[in-house]
């Protein structure tokens, strides 16, 4: 019969245990530890941003508002947006999961620039400190968009917050640069571009956007700080500046940033759909190239945030046309994922449940984008709850749910522990229901004319707002369940096998959790979506790589296993 893969040599000495003490974490250059520290950081940020969201929804339970003053409301929604975007979503998948996975998926021992990687994490921390500073001093009430001239005239901590974003921008650039170099130079022999896992394609496209777009944000925020301090007269009409110029600058980064947020999620879903269907991803090339297409097109559509701002008619129409083009590659991906399920062998595991929830939510997010790309309807829906709901479906229903799916998927690999599947699925169900209950009513609120960023509202909107508030707390509860499931696994979880889901990418060929150098010896690169040589072993609850029986057996040489054994003996 077939031969099982080599035994788990390094299971008793992994990256979590190979060195001890707080300093071994603080100054670590190990991409896996940095990824884990990032993971903790983004989860804490998410908890803060999520609490702020619940405060907002609780306040909006009543038409006149429940307990916040207008000023407090404005600060809470600003910080909710800024924390979620700059501290959570942008680093969530690339910096936390990406850091952990990119080298492992490449069969490499680390990223190209480990020190740059660590400095990226500390820049992220420094940026977060500036946010905390803004939060604890006079707050910030400009909205996460920092639109001028409001941001140049308000008395709140605009400079602290923009400095924070500026620093976070560099953290993001460092991560992106690192991944571009890593993917370009460290692919193992045999892994051509079109044999890379789709997660790497997604991370690579994201990194391209991060490196090209983020400097524009940096320069914009520097100009904003200059305008505030020195009145250089670029954005503030009181000094002959143009506020619309700020919007162009800002969205030139911030629209591509939307794809920095969603592209890695596409990568995660490509992995999840294929692995948990135990079937090759459908249309690999279309998915891979659509990631690149999205990365390029994302630079050409920023004007659709400004259809009502007073751009010329022709500019507006061109941006509308370009906006529609970006919907095509996204649709291609969704169709391909659905086709992947066809005639598969689907395991409805927790990660798969999150992936299916993603498909539902992201499709709604994408389709509602059509209403906003069409000019006539956009003029009615712009700056209403419809937009709020649309981007939450994309960013939260999309990125966050994919992040959770990815987290559950790679959790056994990262921690070496299995979580409780039943409760994991229950958390996915509660999150799914809570999410829809929160944001479906907001589409109706928006088309009925409820403007966004309102601390109070007209009584006719009360019913829908209350549904949304109830949904938000359900969603919060679901996320809490997910967190408890993960934390519980750390203490009570079964030991994770090497390959609990039956994935064919390289990270499933090292032990769970991986050893410090990831692989004992360079793994053999194959098709990342070929599942034919994976057999389920019920005894160890593991999927093992097999080799087909051969008519002609090669002469016994086997230098490699001996090498490993001798090393262990020594």
């Amino acid at each position, binding site marked *: 019969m077939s031969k099982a893969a080599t035994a788990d040599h390094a299971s008793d000495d992994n990256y979590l245990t190979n060195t001890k003490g707080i300093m071994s974490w603080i100054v670590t250059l190990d991409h896996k530890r940095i990824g884990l520290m990032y993971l903790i950081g983004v989860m804490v940020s998410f908890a803060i941003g999520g609490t702020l969201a619940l405060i907002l929804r609780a306040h909006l339970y009543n038409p006149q508002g429940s307990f916040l003053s*207008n000023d407090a409301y404005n600060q809470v929604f600003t910080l909710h947006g800024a924390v979620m975007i700059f501290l959570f979503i942008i680093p969530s998948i690339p910096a936390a999961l990406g850091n952990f996975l990119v080298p492992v998926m490449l069969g490499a021992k680390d990223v190209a620039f480990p020190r740059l990687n660590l400095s990226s994490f500390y820049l992220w921390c420094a940026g977060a400190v500036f946010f905390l500073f803004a939060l604890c001093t006079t707050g910030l009430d400009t909205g996460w968009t920092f639109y001028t001239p409001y941001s140049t005239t308000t008395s709140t901590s605009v400079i602290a917050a923009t400095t924070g974003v500026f620093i976070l921008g560099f953290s993001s650039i460092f991560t992106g640069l690192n991944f571009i170099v890593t993917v370009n130079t460290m692919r193992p022999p045999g892994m051509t571009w079109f044999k890379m896992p789709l997660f790497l394609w997604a991370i690579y496209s994201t990194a391209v956007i991060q490196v090209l777009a983020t400097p524009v944000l940096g320069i914009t925020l520097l100009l904003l700080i200059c305008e505030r301090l020195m009145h250089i007269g670029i954005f503030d009409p009181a000094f002959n500046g143009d*506020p619309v110029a700020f919007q162009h600058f800002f969205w030139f980064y911030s629209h591509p940033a939307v794809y920095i947020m969603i592209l890695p999620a596409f990568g995660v879903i490509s992995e999840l759909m294929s692995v948990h269907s135990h079937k090759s991803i459908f249309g690999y090339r279309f998915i891979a190239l659509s990631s690149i297409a999205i990365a390029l097109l994302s630079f050409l559509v920023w004007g659709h945030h400004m259809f009502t701002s007073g751009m010329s008619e022709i500019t507006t129409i061109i941006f509308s046309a370009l906006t529609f083009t970006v919907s095509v590659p996204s649709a291609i991906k969704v169709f391909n994922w659905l086709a992947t399920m066809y005639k598969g062998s689907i395991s409805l595991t927790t990660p798969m449940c999150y992936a299916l929830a993603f498909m539902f939510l992201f499709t709604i997010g994408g389709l509602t984008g059509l209403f906003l790309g069409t000019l006539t309807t956009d003029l009615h829906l712009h*700056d209403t709850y419809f937009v709020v709901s649309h981007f939450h479906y994309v960013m939260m229903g999309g990125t966050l749910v994919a992040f959770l799916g990815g987290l559950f998927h790679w959790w056994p690999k990262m921690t070496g522990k299995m979580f409780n599947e039943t409760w994991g699925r229950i958390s996915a169900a509660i999150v799914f229901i809570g999410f829809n209950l929160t944001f479906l009513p907001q589409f109706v609120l928006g088309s009925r004319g409820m403007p966004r960023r309102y601390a109070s509202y007209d*009584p006719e909107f009360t019913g829908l707002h209350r549904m949304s508030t109830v949904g938000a707390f359900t969603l919060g509860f679901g996320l809490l369940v997910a967190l408890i499931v993960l934390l519980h696994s750390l203490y009570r979880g079964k030991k994770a096998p090497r390959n609990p889901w039956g994935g064919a990418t390289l990270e499933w060929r090292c032990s769970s959790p991986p050893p410090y150098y990831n692989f004992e010896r360079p793994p053999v690169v194959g098709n990342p979506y070929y599942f034919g040589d994976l057999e389920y072993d019920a005894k160890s609850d593991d999927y093992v790589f097999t080799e087909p029986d051969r008519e002609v057996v090669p002469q016994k040489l086997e230098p490699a296993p001996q090498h490993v054994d001798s090393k262990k003996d020594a």
Partner: protein
Amino acid sequence: MQTLQNLSFVLADVSDGFWFPKTASNFGTEVDFMYKAILWISVAFFVPMMIYMGWAAFKFSKPKGTKAEGKATHNTALELAWSVGPCFLLIWMFYRGSVGYLDMREPPSDAREVQVTAQKWSWLFDYGSGIMNPELHVVKDQPTKLVMRSKDVLHAMYIPAFRVKRDIVPGRYNILWFTPTIATDSLTDEEMQWKSDDPAEAGNILNQGKYFDFFCAEYCGKDHSNMQGKVVVHETQDDYDLWLESANRRPDDQTPEQYGEFLYTTRGCKGCHSADGTAGQCPTFLNSFGAEHEMTDGSKVAVDENYIRESILNPKAKVVKGYPPVMPSFQGQFNDDQIDSVIAYIKSLKK
């Protein structure tokens, strides 16, 4: 496409009132049609996709370790079909949306102009001849063009019933136009009822007269959410003229002092002249009546009715020493009764 249009109009009638406030302008039909067309196109994609996904998740769900029966990794023809196919629908949306948008951007040459000033956190509509009011009054079937400017930060004019929105950017004029198609007086109580779940609140609104809401849609700071107002659509030009006349007249239940204070706050006096003694760009009104001021030419003038009237109508004639001659003339913007009311208000400011 014609079939689609007919279909969604049928459906539009069914679901009107769920998705939108009542359509009340020339643009409403087109915007609502596009919304519903995209909605049904989206539903036509979304529902089969999700039914398929649910079916596949159920049908192909297998015990652990089962091999997938399908081996397909791609199908170029199929993939090209679903990549290119939806593009035709996208092109149609883009085309129709852009044509409709161009219509919304070109006001007819005979449109009535209303000057709009937005500031933190109030609106002022200038109807010409010095008539200014925080409510927007328009006439049914008469194209109206708003020429909008902001005194401070970004704002946006949003009238959901008319399906129009335009940012108001400091430093430039932004234009918005529409033709109202429904007079607010003609709204039935039922049509107004959606304004509130609470009957008491609805009655309150009805007593104030019927109107459409307009909102500031671009975040502008502390009281952004209070920066809303009423659009009143008059059935005929005569109704409008009647309102215009009353808008320029002291209401019967107000004293001249009260009306003077109203004018002081709504007509821009407040921006420069304080009423509480605070030093500003111009002399304060507090205790000013009866006082003697030194003018720029050295002469002394006692502030009396004649001086105030002259300062309103011809402000540059006698300028108080130490202040720049910046006040604009209100000639033709205030009638005699209004000037009297302002004088009465200034007289009342004594401490």
